[in-house]
């Protein structure tokens, strides 16, 4: 049971490159579980990623065709591959900085065109690989290496952004919600059209230590407390919702 996903890993890959406490390893696991539960053939899948920590989830780890591209451009590369060969089940896995800041234009246009891409955005709210700089997803007031007095700007609500651009299936889950996340990935893989799943994934190394989280476990615990379902959110007051992150489906295909 412990090694039942090994067949999905590329021979020669020995360990993940992620820091202790990073959520990306969980996301990697859950993505493969969704693929396993659907009995998908990895020979018919293409995984496209950009630049950054999350881009290393599929490349080189997944034992399928993988395309590790330029910073921000994963969706543009994926669009060309998918449009030329529609038989390729094409999944894009990359980070928040990659997909929504430098690559934001490609994200909204692929959603608008309803290209059949399965996009998973691992959102750690910071630029992890480059040393913890402020991102378009960093919460207002959060400390980063380029906002030492706190981020003065509002972050994107990524799901609203993609909804506004016309995404067929839009959902948000945290790596602390493994069953919901597996189900969301499975659902996205069975829908034809542009799907977008924002996955909240903690970055203790860059975000946690600058924002006074005592340990990676604390970050996970706080994420669990902050994430509530859309249904739960209905019973919360505006004040109570301030620190909460609403998870679930925002458009269900």
């Amino acid at each position, binding site marked *: 049971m412990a090694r039942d996903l090994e067949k999905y890993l590329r021979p020669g890959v020995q360990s993940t490159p992620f820091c202790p406490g990073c959520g990306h390893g969980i996301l990697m696991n859950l993505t493969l579980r969704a693929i396993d539960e659907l009995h998908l053939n990895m020979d018919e899948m293409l995984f496209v990623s950009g630049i950054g920590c999350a881009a290393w989830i599929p490349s080189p780890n997944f034992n399928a065709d993988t395309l*590790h591209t330029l910073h921000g451009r994963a969706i543009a590369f994926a669009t060309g591959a998918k449009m030329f060969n529609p038989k390729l089940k094409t999944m894009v896995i990359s980070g928040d900085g990659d997909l929504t800041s430098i690559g934001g234009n490609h994200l909204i246009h692929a959603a608008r065109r309803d290209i059949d891409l399965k996009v998973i955005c691992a959102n750690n709210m910071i630029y992890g690989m480059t040393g913890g700089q402020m991102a378009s997803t960093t919460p207002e007031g959060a400390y980063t290496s380029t906002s030492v007095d706190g981020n003065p700007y509002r972050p994107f609500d990524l799901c609203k952004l993609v909804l506004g651009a016309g995404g067929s299936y839009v959902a948000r889950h945290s790596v602390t919600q493994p069953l919901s996340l597996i189900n969301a990935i499975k659902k996205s893989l069975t829908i034809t059209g542009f799907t977008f799943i924002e996955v909240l994934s903690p970055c203790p190394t860059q975000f946690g230590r600058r924002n006074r989280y005592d340990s990676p476990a604390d970050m996970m615990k706080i994420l669990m407390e902050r994430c509530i379902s859309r249904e739960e959110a209905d019973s919360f007051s505006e004040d109570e919702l301030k620190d909460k992150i609403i998870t679930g489906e925002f458009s269900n295909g």
Partner: protein
Amino acid sequence: MKPKKIKTTLSPGTYYFSGNEAVAEGAIAAGCLYYGGYPITPSSDIMERISVRFKDIGGTFMQMEDEIASICSVIGAVWAGAKAMTATSGPGFSLMQEGIGYAALTETPMVIVDIQRAGPGTGQATRVASGDLMQAEWGSHGDYQIIALSPWSVQEMYSQTIDAFNLAEIYRVPVFLMGDEAIGHLRERVDIDEEVDVFNRVKKPGEAPFGTEKKDGVPPMPAFGEGEKLLVTGSTHDDRGFRKTDDPSVHSKLVSRINDKILNNRDSITQTESYHLDDAEIIVVSYGFTARSALFAVDELRSEGKRVGLLRLKTIWPFADNKIHKIDKSVKKIFVPEMNRGQVAGEIMKYAKCDVITYNQTDGEIIHPHTIMNELRKLL
């Protein structure tokens, strides 16, 4: 490597095309089945014709959100098995540079058409120049080699587009067709043959796609969906595609090979044409649209008995350094007229044994035959 004879989709015969229309037809004749592009003057009519003609042949046309997306989508399509192209001009060419470097490092065969306009900046969008030649060679960061062709007629806009696809497939490299506004919008006669010679990338299932011990330095290239579990990355990689970003020997080997596979084959890649060179005392070295004016001027002066000749560069990169180096000592001067500030003249100076005289015109106009004639008279 042997070509395949492929029937053209146009009926054989004589056509009256603009240069840009001829590029679209050349691409289709060469087997191009994916085009990603973004509108920009003066290249947009290539995309317009492709968007219509692809309906006949089942090609995939994508008008992307910008030139960055255009070139990236082309690379994605090529790895999915397509022969693919994009076309652009000045500012769009600048935006594509990062993708061009990615294509060079991942050895992605593709064709990029640059219908050059007067720059820098937005410059003069509807005016002609040859100012992007150095950018074609060195536009992206790092050391790499590409192939760049320079057509002088609408016929060559057709035939060199086919050549560009063939060279891309043979060497697994991005190939540039360096047209310009004048040749892109010129209309003239084009002869279309019934068949064209087409080369296709080599496939060898199971073999390493990013390394070879073969002398030509070009590895085989599989596509996504063929069960090869391809590992493609724009980071430094070993011959199976695994990222090796801190191994000096892997980086050195990869960078050397992607440069050498072009430079070591340059004598078969680089094409020139000679006119009246045998007894010439002054040789004009020219390329692209300007070479038309140069040939007119040389022919006129020859009819007056003047010993002038023309060496036309059909290929700009890799540079015809041997041809320049071999120019006989009896030649007194080389004259280089260009619609830029001397981008090719500088290369010629590296290899020439005589004086190199430049004439540079950057006013958005073509160089008139009489201008070249007058300049040559001053040198005679």
